[in-house]
């Protein structure tokens, strides 16, 4: 069971990738499809490894990420 969970607002996301490098367990990646603005968006590709540390959300300039933790 994952200890944490992220929810990324894919329509708000601009695909800057800043969150991806901030994740200590490397669970985020850019999607292969694009959102309404034409940006590839960040998604959790290994959600079961999420620790809920919120590092990704802290550095996201656009406030796209919500984080839950046990």
């Amino acid at each position: 069971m994952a200890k944490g969970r992220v929810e990324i607002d894919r329509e708000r996301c601009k695909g800057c990738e800043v969150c991806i490098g901030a994740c200590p367990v490397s669970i985020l990646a850019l999607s292969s499809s694009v959102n309404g603005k034409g940006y590839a968006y960040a998604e959790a590709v290994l959600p079961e490894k999420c620790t809920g540390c919120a590092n990704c959300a802290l550095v996201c300039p656009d406030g796209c990420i919500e984080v839950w933790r046990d």
Partner: protein
Amino acid sequence: MEKVYSKPRLLTDAVMHYCPGCSHGTIHKIVAEVIAELGIESSTIGVSPVGCSVFAYKYIDIDWIQAAHGRACAVASAVKRLEPEKMVFTYQGDGDLSAIGTGETIHACNRGENIAVIYVNNAIYGMTGGQMAPTTLVGMKTSTSPGGREVNIHGYPFKVADMVAQLEGVCYVTRQSVHTPASVRKAKKAIRLAFENALAGKGLSFVEVVSSCNSGWKMSPVGANEWMEQNMFPFYKLGDIKV
């Protein structure tokens, strides 16, 4: 599970016009969080600049005045004197604060106005297309210094924070960044202290945030943050300058 992070309550739903990965968005988030945590959203007045952050008033749900280019510290001085109970702060880029607004900035600092200044230094004029600023690093290429900044033609980069720290009216000067989770946490503490000082009437607090302008620098957002670590931080050293 318990929710541990969401978009700050005072950040509006408007999608910010900033380029992907721009430091302005992260700094806006911190400002919105600190104002909410201090419970001062109905007694805060922000002064936005001319520059990419001209529309800050659309993104943080408090009262704002948008000042003419470089004049934010003068406008904030007047607002604070007329409304002494309010927490008044400016939010300015380096082109705004340290080029056209140098005079207004220095004299507000020297008078010890009870305001907070958030100074977003990305070493370039972002909004107008990446022209050289007084803060541009030696050798740094910009649209108006395509061969890199040359000291014998353009002079030296301007360390405003170090200079205003010499002035008696200034109670707090710090230089921060927002490119990693740890730096975001530190920058938030600094902005909180600056706002508390402004409320307590201790004089002017100056928080520089060394930032990236990936569009102006012609880099990817992550590449710009790396370049900032390697090139900006050795010159614009992070940490407290005056406490």
